[in-house]
């Protein structure tokens, strides 16, 4: 059985630790990863607690396959907490080596509560759990922290998950990074960790991880390895996700200059093709996975010579086309800095683009930027602004460190219209005016603007639907995508490997049962996916969010038509089609017109204990 069957509780205020058994019924109902993580969050949190207060629990959780040989799932973990960016539920996953180590130490999850008086790190050596002083790690990057901890504890194979200076300084887009560049990226989990004065989690696990049917499981893994050499993973193994640059540009779906244009005149120069030809030095991978997707790029010459970072499409786009920066050397440096300070590269790029837009429109001036020319395309300003955000330097650094939603409100003078976020989380790299299934899908996502909550961009990009309109039926597409992705993220399969599940849920159910010995059918699995989505929605409702008024789109997406000549000219999302889409989605979900899960739906999903929350909300809205 591949669950460790134990949950570790760490109270950072008192330093006390405790181990409690994992409830096997919960494990089956919520799988693991984000599903079980959000269930544990609900059970261990109070309503209305500030995300950065000691009372907000921070949950590190593995999946049922973590620690096994399962490629892409064997190496994973997730972090769940209330987000300081969205004030709603947040989950984020990372792969690498850390997740398997945590499972081998004998824990399915760690629940951190309270706040340490001083900066500490937790050292988990199988059964031994200690809080160690981390004052000497203050201001260090996650990678430096990792190196220092392994050096001082004297074991190369210790795995570390840490925050950088940004997390310590409560930058609301701070992330948590393990294994040099693998990030619990979105939703500001690093700030929650920083608010607890928790610099890092260091783990050494030496225990066995056993699966229920070793022979069959190992055979299935062999099949997955074979499939990974095939077409389903081609993109990730060759050009990598930066392949998207030219694909989306051709579709007029590559947001440029803070979502003004939908195509970028410099696309060729920041394309996956150009990147691989000139900058990628090695492609490596995570533990247990031979797929190889980590494109490690090095700048060979010029002012950013030697700068090294792992490049994926989303961050490349955010600090590149969105800021109109067409130099890959500056992009590589910008992403390196995001990893160095420990900030989410997507949100950070979108925030810098927001600031550039404000500057171009005269809402902020050189007086606000301490003399910096924040024009679109100025790569030096991009790099400087990232430094200021990561370290909360000056007025600009501080206001932008709050995220684009809060910064927009704080700056005022119409700045909010330039902030491209949903529920407070900055948009990823898809122009929602020309990919309208994505527009609807991103708007209803429980963690805010996110391409990975439903993959709703996929039917648009692949031409399976008319991407320039929202019509009946999109709700079902999005719901199916969400429920499936909830399963994927609860098993914590890497999404790059989702295509190798040739038989979809059937393969995933088989994987789960072979590993855990717990019977699971594809139907039960997708039901769990639906349960998880409803659970997340209700947590948001408990936090005063999660209704129709929160399922929004940024002002630009609904008010500024695409100006670029060509297929997409004039495209914009109008209120009527958006309302139709929301109605359609809520209806297939079995939710009210206000987007609230009905008591009947919750009972059907075995979520009876959440009924009182929705009843209260429904009656308050009458």
């Amino acid at each position, binding site marked *: 059985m591949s669950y460790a069957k134990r949950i570790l509780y760490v109270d950072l205020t008192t330093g006390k630790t405790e181990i409690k058994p994992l409830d096997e019924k919960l494990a089956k109902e919520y799988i693991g990863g984000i599903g079980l993580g959000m269930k544990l969050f609900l059970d261990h949190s109070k309503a209305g607690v500030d995300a950065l207060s000691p009372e907000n629990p921070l949950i590190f959780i593995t999946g049922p396959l973590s620690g096994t040989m399962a490629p892409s799932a*064997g190496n994973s973990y997730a972090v769940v907490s209330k987000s300081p960016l969205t004030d709603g539920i947040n989950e984020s996953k990372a792969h690498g080596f850390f997740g398997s180590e945590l499972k081998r130490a004998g824990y399915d999850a760690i629940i951190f509560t309270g706040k340490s008086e001083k900066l500490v790190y937790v050292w988990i050596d199988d059964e031994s759990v200690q809080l160690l002083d981390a004052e000497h790690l203050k201001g260090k990057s996650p990678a430096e922290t990792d190196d220092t901890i392994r050096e001082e504890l004297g074991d190369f194979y210790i795995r570390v998950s840490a925050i950088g200076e940004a997390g310590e300084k409560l930058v609301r887009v701070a992330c948590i990074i393990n294994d040099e560049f693998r990030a619990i990226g979105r939703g500001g989990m690093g700030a929650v960790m920083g608010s607890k004065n928790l610099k890092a989690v260091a783990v050494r696990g030496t225990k066995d991880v056993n699966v229920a049917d*070793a022979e069959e499981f190992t055979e299935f893994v*062999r099949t997955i390895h074979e499939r990974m050499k095939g077409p389903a993973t081609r993109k990730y193994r060759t050009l990598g996700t930066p392949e998207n640059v030219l694909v989306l540009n051709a579709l007029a779906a590559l947001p440029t200059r803070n979502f003004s244009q939908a195509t970028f005149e410099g696309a060729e120069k920041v394309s996956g093709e150009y990147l691989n030809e000139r900058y990628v030095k090695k492609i*490596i991978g995570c533990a247990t996975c031979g797929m*190889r997707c*980590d494109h490690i790029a090095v700048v060979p010459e010029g002012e950013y010579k030697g700068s090294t970072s792992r490049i994926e499409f989303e961050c490349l786009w955010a600090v590149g086309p969105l800021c109109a920066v067409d130099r890959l050397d500056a992009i590589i440096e910008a992403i390196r800095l995001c990893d160095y300070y420990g900030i989410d590269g997507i949100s950070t790029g979108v925030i810098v683009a927001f600031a550039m837009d404000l500057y171009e429109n005269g809402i902020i001036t050189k007086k606000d930027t301490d003399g910096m020319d924040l024009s679109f395309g100025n790569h030096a300003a991009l790099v400087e602004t990232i430094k200021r955000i990561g370290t909360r330097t000056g007025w600009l650094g501080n206001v932008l460190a709050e995220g684009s939603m809060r910064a927009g409100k704080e700056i005022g003078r119409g700045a909010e219209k330039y902030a491209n976020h949903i529920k407070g989380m900055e948009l990823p790299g898809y122009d929602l005016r020309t990919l309208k299934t994505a527009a609807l899908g991103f708007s209803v996502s429980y963690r805010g603007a996110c391409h990975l909550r439903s993959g709703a961009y996929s039917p648009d990009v692949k031409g399976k639907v008319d991407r320039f309109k929202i019509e009946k039926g999109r709700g079902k597409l999005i719901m199916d995508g969400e429920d499936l992705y909830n399963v994927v993220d609860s098993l914590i399969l890497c999404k790059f490997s989702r295509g190798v599940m040739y038989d979809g849920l059937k393969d995933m159910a088989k994987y789960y049962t072979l590993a855990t010995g717990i019977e699971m059918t594809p139907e039960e699995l997708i039901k769990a996916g639906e349960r998880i989505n409803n659970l997340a929605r209700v947590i948001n409702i408990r936090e005063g969010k999660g209704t129709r008024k929160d399922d929004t789109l940024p002002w630009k997406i609904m008010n500024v038509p695409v100006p670029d000549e060509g297929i997409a000219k004039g495209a914009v999302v109008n209120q009527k089609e958006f309302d139709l889409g929301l109605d359609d989605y809520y209806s297939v979900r079995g939710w009210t017109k206000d987007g609230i899960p009905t008591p009947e739906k919750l009972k059907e999903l075995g979520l009876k204990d959440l009924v009182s929350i929705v009843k209260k909300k429904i009656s308050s809205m009458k």
Partner: protein
Amino acid sequence: MPTIHEKKFVSGDPSKCIGCCVCEYACSMEHENTYNPTKSRIRAIRLNSFVNLAVACRLCEDSPCVAACPRDALMQSEETGIILVDEDKCNGCGWCIEACDYGAIQLHPESKKVFVCDLCDGEPKCVEWCPEEALDFTTKDIISQKARISAVKKLFQDALKSEK
């Protein structure tokens, strides 16, 4: 008896290895029926993104590990070159570990005796599983031969191109 020229061992190619540790999981499953890298006879090292290598026993001639054992718990098979551990004699003193330049012989986390690559009866599972084909079950002569071929190819790449 086969000479060192003919004895095959598990060799890692640093230009192909990505440090993914699949070899460790395959090894521990084969020998210990569990997934546990600390029980693997081959261990991967990632110094940084660019420097990765999995290391296993290299079947040295006149093995220093064997020579170092004061209890005669180790002997080298004349047939295959693998190091055989007599678990009754081994007391985990670790002199063999100190003697090995490659870190290829280790102390087992449970038995507290040393353990080392046994080539899986001539069909090393790590080589079979390595997704990058970075591991070879080969001889030292073949490795040097391959290196020469690739060096010459590189040296004469223009000539080789024009032949086509």
